[in-house]
């Protein structure tokens, strides 16, 4: 599948940005576990947070293909900034755009679309992840306010200095899950300390505690009781974005490893001259390519308004698993240097694993795909 000339131009623009702005400083943020505010500011300036949103809200008027292209190019260099963008757009801003009222959109979207603010999406709880329908967080209507109590786990972009809100899912009645917007700084809304993570070390992830948090009744996002269906749709779309991100990581492994295999010498020749290495590289490139085709196809179906859920699941499953394989092989090709944090492939190796877990584990993807075959 060929992308349009405009999307190729977007790819070139984001690639230049990733190489010139992200690559030189990201290892430092990763090592120090600091959030790259300056990079995020510049990503906002070039419109990346607005890619799939209409111009009415300051967006770029693009779609999930455009978002995927940007994520792929960012993740080719670094996954922390890529997941920051992915979560901000797919999980943070998109539900507000899709399900928000006119007032909610006017109030929240412009800052999110410009990247001046970030939104989180709080679905996972300490006791419920894959089984997200098991949500224990409760919201009770008291007059014209929701009173929310509960805990959320692993919420991306929930605790940065520029986080404006987290949309949380909560039980609003027996078997009734709804989504409610909780602005940052609301009394009782406590953002726990950032996790010490194996990878994505320059991204922002926190546990959240909600203790008698009061927000206006008007902060209900979408229909009461439709929270479960809404987030399933949100996750379906997000899987395409994660697949694109995983493809970028897999391609980054190819880029780094090919360059290294041409330079590194052993037994009197470049290691790329050994078939054991060059065949690994051929396989790595093939994996990245097929993952790209898979996410392009899923995105094209989404953009065309067709059934895409099962294709998004296949793209996410495949891309995340080949990303892990490519990262393992890239580290192997780099030998001992591949185990040193200063080498990008070490970062890729640490970042790859979570792709098989976040936004639906590989097992969950297989369940979605199997169910589509009537199993």
């Amino acid at each position, binding site marked *: 599948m060929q992308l349009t000339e405009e999307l190729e131009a977007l790819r070139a*623009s*984001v690639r*230049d*940005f990733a190489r010139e702005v992200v690559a030189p400083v990201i290892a430092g943020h990763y090592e120090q576990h600091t959030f790259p505010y300056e990079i995020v500011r510049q990503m906002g300036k*070039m*419109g990346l947070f607005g890619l799939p949103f209409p111009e009415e809200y300051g967006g770029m*008027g*693009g779609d999930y293909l*455009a978002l995927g292209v940007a994520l792929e190019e960012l993740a080719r260099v670094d996954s922390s900034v890529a997941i920051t963008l992915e979560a901000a757009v797919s999980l943070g801003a998109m539900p507000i755009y899709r399900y928000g009222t006119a007032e909610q959109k006017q109030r929240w979207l412009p800052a999110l679309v410009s990247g001046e603010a970030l939104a989180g999406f709080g679905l996972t709880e300490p006791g419920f992840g894959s089984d997200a329908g098991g949500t224990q967080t409760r919201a009770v209507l008291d007059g014209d306010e929701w009173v929310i109590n509960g805990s959320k786990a692993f919420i991306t972009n929930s605790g940065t200095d520029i986080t404006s809100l987290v949309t949380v899912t909560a039980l609003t009645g027996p078997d009734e899950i709804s989504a409610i917007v909780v602005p940052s700084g609301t009394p009782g809304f406590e953002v726990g300390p950032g996790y010490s993570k194996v990878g994505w070390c320059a991204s922002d992830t926190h546990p959240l505690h909600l203790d008698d948090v009061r927000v206006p009744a008007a902060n209900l996002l979408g229909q009461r009781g439709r929270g479960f269906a809404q987030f399933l749709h949100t996750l379906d779309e997000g899987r395409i974005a994660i697949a694109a991100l995983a493809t970028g990581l897999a391609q980054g492994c190819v880029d780094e490893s090919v360059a290294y295999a041409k330079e590194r010498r052993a037994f009197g020749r470049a290691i790329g001259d050994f078939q054991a290495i060059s065949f690994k590289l051929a396989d790595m490139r093939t994996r990245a390519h097929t993952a790209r085709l898979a996410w392009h196809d899923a995105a094209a179906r989404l953009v065309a308004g067709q059934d895409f859920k099962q294709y998004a699941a296949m793209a996410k499953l495949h891309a995340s698993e080949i990303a892990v394989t490519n990262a393992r092989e890239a580290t192997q090709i780099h030998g001992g240097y591949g185990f040193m944090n200063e080498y990008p492939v070490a970062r890729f190796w640490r970042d790859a694993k979570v792709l098989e877990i976040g936004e639906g584990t590989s097992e969950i993807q297989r369940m979605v795909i199997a169910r589509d075959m009537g199993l």
Partner: protein
Amino acid sequence: MNIVVLVKQVPDSGAERELRSDDQTIDRSSANNVLNEMDEYAVEEALKLQEALGGEVTVLTMGPEQAGEAIRKALQMGPDKAVHVLDGALHGSCAVATSKVLAAALRTLNPDLVLAGAESTDGRVQVMPHMIAERLGIAALTGARKLTVDGGTLTVERQTEEGYEVVTAATPAIVSVWDTINEPRYPSLKGIMAAKKKPVQTLSLADLGISPDEVGFAGSTSTVVESTKRPPRQAGTKVTDSGDGGVQLVEFLATERFV
């Protein structure tokens, strides 16, 4: 303010560059061609001025058909339109001949301000803004690291090896900029989509009233007779510190005239 930005397509300075064996001009087929890096800063400066003062930004290039790619890249950043001087007879033009063509094209555009990169990464002669200024009878403020506009007065901080000089001139004038002046924007999807619809006017030598023998190889004041490839990079000097490492380092710096 009516601003024209001079842009040029050059072979990527990060890649291996070659001259053609037949006529000693740049081999554009072997190189990855890009918008000259310093020109992006000139475009950015023009866009910032436009945001503050209004007016129109036009990019101007002289180059073969494929220089259209550099125009498109520049337009994606945000300028309103472009002019491409395109003529087979231009091939082989030296800097002096090029300045004649660009000056003629600028006369048709009548700008208040001409912006240019301080140098192109291929020729690196740094004299184009001066030559154009001479031909147009306007001031050349070159090597700017800062530019401010106050009514019809331009003030430039001119970067020098020791520091900077402050120079001023009345518009119209030409200002060339270094990469210290701003942070060029990366094209957004919106900019990329908009660039497709922006007008690009093509001008021939006839349109500019220049005869073919005034430019190209025939009209050039300099000719490249021969060229040799850059010698391969030599291995560096390794200083092993056995007590006199510091002395060795200073000696090295002194012999290479770094200190």
